[in-house]
């Protein structure tokens, strides 16, 4: 067989749930400086478990920043594209952090458990950089907004799938019923203080739960004992790709702006408040974008992958930023930036896969939506 089948051995961090993954026989891989489970029983099986029942992900590697104080909202607003001051207590919102030219530094989720307290979840790969960026921009000499990095003292799990609410009900009675999508609450799970949000990265209903690090393993085990399927990074990627959710480093990065990525809805410009990249983004919005991130679906056998060139009438017109096989749809899917005029669903293209053209077409976003009639499985 061609290809390196052996493991990489560079040093990396371990989450509080590491012993659980080892005990379950997970295949571990390095990811953003962490040793994370790629899969337990198999990517496809884990993927289907989330779509049909419930799956459990260790997402402790993600950055968690608490911003507190009377000026917390205003300070955070100056960092994010979204006007977080309009997030009500008990709600959350997806946002981007941009640099001055409008390029995306990270995609984050900002939650507001209290009027003067925000929890900002950031990508593992960007945690240090965003933490520094935030610290550098804190109002000088002010005790009106404090920043705390609480990653090291917490664990974070994602419980995802149609059966997720019933599992949460068993752990924290009454909480699921009162929690709408994108909302958050603080509750007790087995006497442990927990932060719970009705959010996720899979396209299914589900929850993300933050607990003290020492309580992470017990919570994980409680859910696994209830037959929730442990799921690794492999399934995390196939699930999010079907839901057409951007992956930082692939679909969005410093060379892409929110509007071409289809994330203009996270950019608030009408409050007039300053934030990283505002002027550039205003100009981009006014000028319009020449390319857009599009969904692509294969029309024949084969798998398109990140980096594959995209061809229209034989001419190169872009490159795939994400690609893979969709277990739920049974075909290969991908994301890539295309000239705006080629992004209408149904537009036929070819993906250059190792020198051979793979017929594909632009698909409506997302590829998969929960509850859509007629999708296989």
């Amino acid at each position, binding site marked *: *067989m*061609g290809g390196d*089948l*052996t493991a990489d051995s560079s040093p990396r961090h371990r989450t509080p749930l590491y012993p659980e993954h080892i005990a379950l026989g997970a295949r571990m891989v390095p990811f953003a400086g962490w040793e994370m489970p790629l899969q337990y029983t198999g*990517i496809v099986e884990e993927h289907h478990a989330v779509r049909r029942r419930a799956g459990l992900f260790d997402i402790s590697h993600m950055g968690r920043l608490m911003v507190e104080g009377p000026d917390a909202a205003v300070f955070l607003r100056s960092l994010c594209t979204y006007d977080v001051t309009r997030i009500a207590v008990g709600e959350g919102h997806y946002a981007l952090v941009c640099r001055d030219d409008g390029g995306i530094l990270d995609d984050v989720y900002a939650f507001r458990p209290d009027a003067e307290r925000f929890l900002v979840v950031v990508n593992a790969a960007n945690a240090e950089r965003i933490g520094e960026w935030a610290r550098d921009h804190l109002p000088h000499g002010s005790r009106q907004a404090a920043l705390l990095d609480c990653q090291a003292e917490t664990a974070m799990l994602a419980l995802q799938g149609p059966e997720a609410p019933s599992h949460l009900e068993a752990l924290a009675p009454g909480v699921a019923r009162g929690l709408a999508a994108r909302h958050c609450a603080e509750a007790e799970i087995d006497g442990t203080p927990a932060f719970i949000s009705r959010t996720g990265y899979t396209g299914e209903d589900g929850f993300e739960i933050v607990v003290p690090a020492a309580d992470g393993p017990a919570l994980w085990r409680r859910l696994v004992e209830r037959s929730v399927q442990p799921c690794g990074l492999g399934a995390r990627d*196939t699930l999010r790709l079907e839901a057409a959710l951007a992956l930082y480093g692939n679909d969005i990065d410093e060379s892409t702006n929110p509007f071409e990525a289809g994330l203009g809805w996270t950019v608030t410009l009408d409050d007039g408040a300053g934030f990283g990249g505002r002027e550039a983004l205003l100009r981009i919005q006014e000028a319009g974008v020449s390319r857009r991130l599009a969904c692509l679906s294969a029309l024949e056998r*084969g*798998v398109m992958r990140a980096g594959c060139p995209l061809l229209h009438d034989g001419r190169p017109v872009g490159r795939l930023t994400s690609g893979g*096989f969709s*277990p739920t749809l049974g075909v290969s899917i991908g994301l890539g930036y295309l000239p705006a005029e080629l992004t209408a669903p149904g537009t036929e293209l070819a993906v250059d896969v190792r020198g051979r053209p793979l017929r594909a077409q632009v698909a409506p976003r997302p590829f998969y939506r929960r509850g859509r009639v007629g999708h296989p499985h």
Partner: protein
Amino acid sequence: MPNPTDRRYTREHEWVRVDDGVGTVGITDYAQDELGDIVYVEMPAPGASVKQSEKLGEIESVKAVSDLYAPISGEVVEVNQGVNDHPELLNESPYEKGWLVRLRLADATELDALLTAEQYDQLLAEAEAE
């Protein structure tokens, strides 16, 4: 699963079992485990000729694509349609139901260069120890 002794192995994790001048070719349990869930298999059509160690086909898993190499030289006489339609067979039964192609051997002495089950076990043990 233990590596069957009725066949020969390559360092690239393929196996070949010869019956009456026809070699059945597949990948080992170690290979299917490393590859993960297999989604597509590309094999040459009957009639194609291959040389030992040349690329025989491709195996695409959720994670990546891997080249398959011919353990021996020969002419393709049969391709396993079952694996084409149900690639998961390759993960579930790499030594039986998940066979890939059958080749009419061009030169039986080529088998001497391949590993026995014992030697292949040894290769895996050494790789594990690294």
